[in-house]
């Protein structure tokens, strides 16, 4: 079912709601701009929740506990409190019952109409990303990275950006229930108390907890207390995309489970083995920043080798990329290791014999890599991805140690998660226990294990054997369906807690809004088992940290500073010192693992850059976000190489029956350049069958073929072509910069570092021909308007050399500017709305292409072709040279879009916002008009931010300083590829970039004089490998 259908479904059950008005034709705002307006709009459930919520609950739970409702239940209190919290944010009046502390470096009074920023943290797989959340009158509206946080450094991922959407998700579970019987929280507590006292008799032998991996010291402490009370109870961590390989690998290498902390900043040569370190994992945001910092074209520019089966974001950034099945990567590393050994690196001598039989890769490649690594001892880095087995990680560790990289480019430390491993193995033991009938009470706080667990575990069926299965989750998903009791989870933005970054730094997680649908917090659920379920996470958390001795003296003061800063100082965990590898032991340990791979085609699973493991499947933003590489939306596909597709005579969209072992599923085929032959890659996270309306029926569930003994890849899959065909909704149909062989100037200029450093290379003439030259200005009819008299001359520069195409900017922009989503059908028609389009082009051969990504939004031409064709002055130039789009004046002739050579304008072909849930409207940015049907829109350079900043600085009587005003995309970008500022300030970063020798203007030749310019992509190929041949493009 396409999302349009869902939309209809949703509009139906919201029939009573007034249909949304035409922008500009109504006096009733769809969002609050101030308390007065908010009051006027509340029949909005969200608001109702905050006002009526408390009292409503009091009544309801009064009945429950028979006290006639005069006793306020904890939850009731929580919401009354949250009401005053909201009031606090709104009216700047009463002190919030729950303190919410403004961020220190943004000293802004709590004022209606002025947003506040609160520091919190979010952990995708247990490790913290420090965030700043913008809050309007108590409603979180925008996520930013916390600059003070060692992991995010102020940037974000698209996952984190999407939190402000999911918190208002109307599909979230809303009612505690046991079977179909609705429960009150205190009823649940009562029942749990009863049950636990039984369990207590045999030390909780039948009590099991299946949790997501977490670094939270607070939850760790709760866990300890539970285990104290129930010595025979057990905790098991599970994530369907766990990093077990890494920890097991370090165990092999160093004898104890450790996690690697990478520091690519100091790496001259990076060899990434099936590791998408720029696109996934706990370090991705920081690594992206560090990596980009070393891409500045100079002799210090780093060099990236990537060996991987399917094209990833990291692969797209590679200077040299070698495609091979995931199962062969180990063999490749082994050969590399033995070659290094043969070059006299003593430490590797014992491993020299590992060299592996099959060598279907280019030997030159191996030599080149080896030489490069040797040349850069101590400043090189070998990274192995989470999909690779322990042996490979172990070898990599050994290699890093041998190269002396330890401590410089990589260090190893004790895992901060409460369980070192969270993968198949631990879950397996639990499964056996359940099968043995030994489990009486199973509390699942892990994210949707029934969907994510290996099929051979048959978890859903097994759970029937558990008398008392309790699922704590955001949605009524697959796992909820399989469990007896369902507890709706509070959203990360609704919860108290704490998390640790990869370096150990602790962040306090604070709620931005009271649980909209009355969700419960994880801490409260666990606390229920030590009889403190009604104390409240906030109290427990504070109590815990009071006892940690981190805040001598005035605890409350320190506590507030922690909340404000978003980090708890002095909590970083040191790395392991003096690690050594016992080569002999290692050799024996890994040899069997590297044994000859089985024959046949390889089936490979991959976490999805949009859905991850499926937990983001209900986010329309992410569903509609074009896949960074394939540009696929609203679907996943079985990805194969051109050669493989040819061999099986498959076209894009052909549905194939994939049969593996005893199971078979149907999936559509998508050919992907640079994909390894004889491999089919199946992205996880789709084909959801839970209660989430958006996710329902999107894509196929690759997990159906995932077995516990082959969680990531295996040989022996077969593809059978079926008759069926599906049409993908792909936002970029074409692969190259000249799909039909035309000879037009390429949108992206890329060159090698050698060419860039040589001032006489043709690269320089090429870019010089494509940018204004003061000596020989472009011929013009009308004298260019002079903006130098204006206080600011806004402009942007995008460094293609830094852009990884990760798409965080796209979602950031979507969130900041209230950009709607249009659904699968409309994307297919070519009506997607994201203001930023990340164009992805392949150059070179289809088999081993080079990939370039180019973020393209409105470039704010000074001689804008869109403007003079608008009959009603709806798009004109501002005094500072912004290309303004005036929604309320637009009549929607679409002429401007036709005449836009960049095609960056977006049109509301239908009244997409009709389908918004009332709650979703609460998440809108009140500074940006919500566009209705028939209106053109496009990038505004975040003019709402400009005007806010302009006003505040003018009141202070000063100019806006360079760097204090960031556009949403710029702020979200992990690599700092996007820079925005004023050209009238000759020292501004953007001015410097506009003067950069790599600068060129897109479509310079047609004389639009864009304000957004690009810096050419630069590659740092190994001369010994030469240039990959530049073959003709592919259509």
């Amino acid at each position, binding site marked *: 079912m396409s999302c349009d259908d869902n939309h209809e479904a949703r509009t139906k059950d919201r029939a009573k709601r007034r249909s949304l008005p035409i922008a500009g034709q109504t006096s009733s705002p769809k969002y609050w701009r101030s308390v007065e307006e908010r009051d006027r709009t509340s029949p909005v459930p969200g608001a109702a929740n905050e006002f009526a919520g408390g009292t409503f609950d009091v009544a309801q739970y009064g009945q429950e506990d028979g006290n006639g409702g005069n006793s306020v239940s904890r939850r009731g209190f929580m919401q009354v409190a949250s009401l005053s919290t909201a009031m606090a944010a709104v009216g700047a009046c009463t002190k919030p019952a729950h303190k919410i502390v403004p961020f220190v470096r943004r000293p802004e009074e709590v004022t209606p109409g002025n947003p506040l920023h609160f520091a919190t943290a979010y952990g995708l797989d247990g490790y913290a990303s420090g965030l700043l959340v913008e809050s309007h009158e108590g409603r979180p509206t925008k996520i930013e990275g916390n600059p003070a946080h060692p992991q995010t450094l102020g940037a974000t991922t698209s996952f984190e950006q999407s939190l402000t959407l999911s918190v208002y998700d109307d599909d979230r579970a809303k009612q505690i229930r046991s079977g179909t019987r609705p429960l009150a929280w205190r009823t649940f507590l009562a029942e749990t108390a009863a049950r636990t006292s039984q369990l207590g008799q045999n030390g909780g032998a039948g009590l099991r907890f299946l949790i997501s991996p977490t670094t939270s010291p607070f939850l760790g402490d709760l866990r300890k207390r539970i285990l104290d009370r129930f010595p025979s109870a057990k905790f098991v961590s599970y994530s369907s995309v766990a990093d077990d390989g890494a920890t097991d690998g370090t165990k092999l290498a160093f004898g104890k489970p450790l996690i690697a902390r990478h520091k690519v900043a100091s790496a001259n040569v990076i060899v990434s083995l099936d590791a998408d370190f720029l696109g996934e994992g706990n370090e991705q945001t920081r690594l992206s920043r560090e990596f980009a910092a070393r891409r500045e074209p100079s002799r210090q520019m780093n060099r990236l080798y990537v060996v991987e089966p399917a094209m990833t974001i990291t692969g797209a950034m590679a200077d040299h990329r070698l495609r091979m099945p995931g199962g062969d990567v180990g063999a490749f590393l082994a050969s590399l290791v033995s070659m290094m050994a043969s070059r006299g690196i003593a430490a590797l001598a014992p491993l020299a014999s590992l060299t592996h039989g099959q060598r279907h890769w280019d030997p030159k490649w191996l030599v080149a890599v080896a030489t490069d690594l040797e040349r850069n001892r101590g400043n090189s880095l070998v990274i192995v991805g989470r999909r690779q087995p322990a042996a490979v990680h172990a070898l990599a560790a050994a290699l890093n140690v041998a190269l002396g990289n330890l401590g410089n480019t990589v260090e190893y430390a004790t895992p901060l998660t409460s369980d070192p491993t969270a993968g198949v193995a631990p879950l397996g033991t639990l499964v056996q226990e359940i099968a043995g009938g030994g489990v009486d009470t199973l509390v699942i706080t892990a994210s949707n294990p029934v969907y994510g667990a290996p099929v051979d575990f048959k978890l859903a069926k097994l759970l029937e054997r558990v008398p008392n299965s309790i699922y704590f989750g955001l949605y009524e998903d697959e796992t909820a369906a399989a469990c007896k009791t369902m507890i709706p989870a509070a959203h990360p933005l609704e919860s108290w807690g704490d998390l640790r970054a990869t370096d150990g730094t602790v962040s306090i997680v604070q709620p931005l809004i009271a649980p909209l649908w009355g969700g419960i917090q994880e801490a409260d659920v666990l606390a229920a088992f030590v009889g403190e379920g009604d104390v409240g996470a906030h109290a427990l958390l504070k109590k815990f940290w009071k006892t940690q001795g981190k805040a001598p003296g005035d605890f409350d003061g320190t506590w507030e500073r922690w909340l404000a800063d978003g980090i708890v100082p002095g909590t970083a965990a040191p790395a392991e010192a003096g690690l050594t590898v016992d080569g002999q032991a290692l050799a024996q340990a890994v040899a069997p693992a590297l044994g000859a791979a089985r024959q046949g085609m390889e089936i490979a699973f991959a976490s999805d850059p949009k859905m991850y493991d499926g937990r983001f499947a209900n986010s329309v933003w992410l569903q509609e976000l074009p896949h960074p590489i394939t540009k696929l939306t609203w679907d996943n596909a079985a990805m194969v190489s051109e050669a493989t597709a040819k061999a099986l005579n498959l076209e894009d969209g052909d549905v194939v029956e994939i049969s593996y072992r005893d199971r078979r599923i149907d999936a559509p085929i998508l050919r992907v350049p640079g994909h390894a032959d004889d491999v089919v890659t199946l992205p996880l996270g789709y084909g959801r069958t839970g209660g989430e309306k958006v996710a329902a029926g999107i894509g196929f569930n690759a997990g159906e073929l995932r077995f516990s003994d082959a969680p990531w890849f295996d040989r022996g899959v077969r593809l059978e072509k079926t008759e069926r065909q599906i049409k993908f909704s792909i936002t970029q149909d074409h692969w190259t910069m000249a799909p039909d062989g035309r000879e037009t100037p390429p949108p992206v200029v890329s060159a090698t570092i050698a060419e860039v450093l040589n001032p006489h290379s043709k690269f320089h003439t090429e870019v010089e021909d494509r940018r204004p030259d003061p000596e020989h200005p472009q011929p013009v009819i009308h004298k260019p308007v002079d903006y130098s008299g204006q206080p600011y001359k806004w402009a942007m520069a995008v460094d293609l050399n830094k852009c990884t195409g990760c798409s965080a900017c796209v979602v950031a922009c979507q969130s900041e500017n209230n950009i709607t989503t249009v659904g699968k059908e409309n994307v297919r028609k070519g009506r997607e709305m994201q203001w930023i389009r990340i164009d992805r082009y392949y150059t070179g051969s289809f088999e081993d292409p080079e990939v370039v990504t180019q973020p393209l939004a409105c470039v704010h031409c000074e001689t804008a072709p869109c403007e003079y064709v608008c009959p009603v002055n709806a798009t*004109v*130039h501002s005094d500072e040279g912004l290309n303004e789009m005036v929604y309320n004046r637009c009549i929607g002739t679409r002429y401007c879009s036709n005449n836009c050579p960049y095609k960056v304008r977006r049109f509301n072909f239908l009244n997409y916002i009709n389908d918004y849930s009332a709650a979703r409207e609460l998440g809108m940015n009140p500074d940006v008009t919500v566009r209705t049907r028939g209106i053109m829109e496009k990038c505004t350079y975040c003019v709402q931010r400009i005007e806010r900043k302009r006003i505040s600085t003018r009141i202070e009587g000063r100019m806006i300083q360079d760097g204090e005003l960031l556009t949403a995309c710029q702020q979200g970008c992990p690599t700092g590829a996007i820079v925005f500022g004023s050209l009238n300030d000759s020292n501004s970063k953007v001015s410097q970039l506009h003067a950069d020798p790599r600068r060129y203007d897109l479509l310079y030749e047609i004389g639009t004089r864009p304000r957004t310019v690009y810096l050419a992509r630069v590659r740092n190929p190994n001369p010994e490998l030469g240039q990959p041949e530049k073959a003709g493009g592919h259509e």
Partner: protein
Amino acid sequence: MSDQGHEHHSDFVPRRFLLAEFSTPAGLLAGTTKMREGGYKNLDMHSPFPIHGTEEALGLKRPKIPLIVLCGAIAGACIAYSLIYFCNVFDWPLNIGNRPPHGPPANIPITFELAVLLGGGSAFMGFFALAKLPQPYHPIFESDDFARASVDAFFLSVELEPGTDIDRALADIRAAGALSGEIVEESER
């Protein structure tokens, strides 16, 4: 000209017309000229289609339409250009993709169109105004024969001043070559 038809005096004096049919356009022209030379005023011819020489036969002055149209067209052009100038240059000049607020070439089309519109309009209006149409009632419609004037008959009408000798008029018109002649009288309401 010959119609105060819609002016009602308290003492109503009906206007009388001498209406005579001629067999051919040529005959009509000749007859008209003859009658005019015979001193009759307020003559008019009625034919299913325009006849060459009408103006001379009736001794009409130059038609006024061309001048009216010229004025209309000039007015249109001036209104258009000044409107554009007022809107986009004087009242609110905006930076439209770096183009100057006052771009004469861009103003040509609308200036021209409005000239044509008002010119054509005045040609149309002008005709009906000069012909004092619509005028559903006219005394000569009182004649039953006159219905053929729009089909295939050629009439000469003479508005007779009060006290004209009817018989003599009839005689004169026959002499002028009319096939028939009759007197029609305006009715009061």
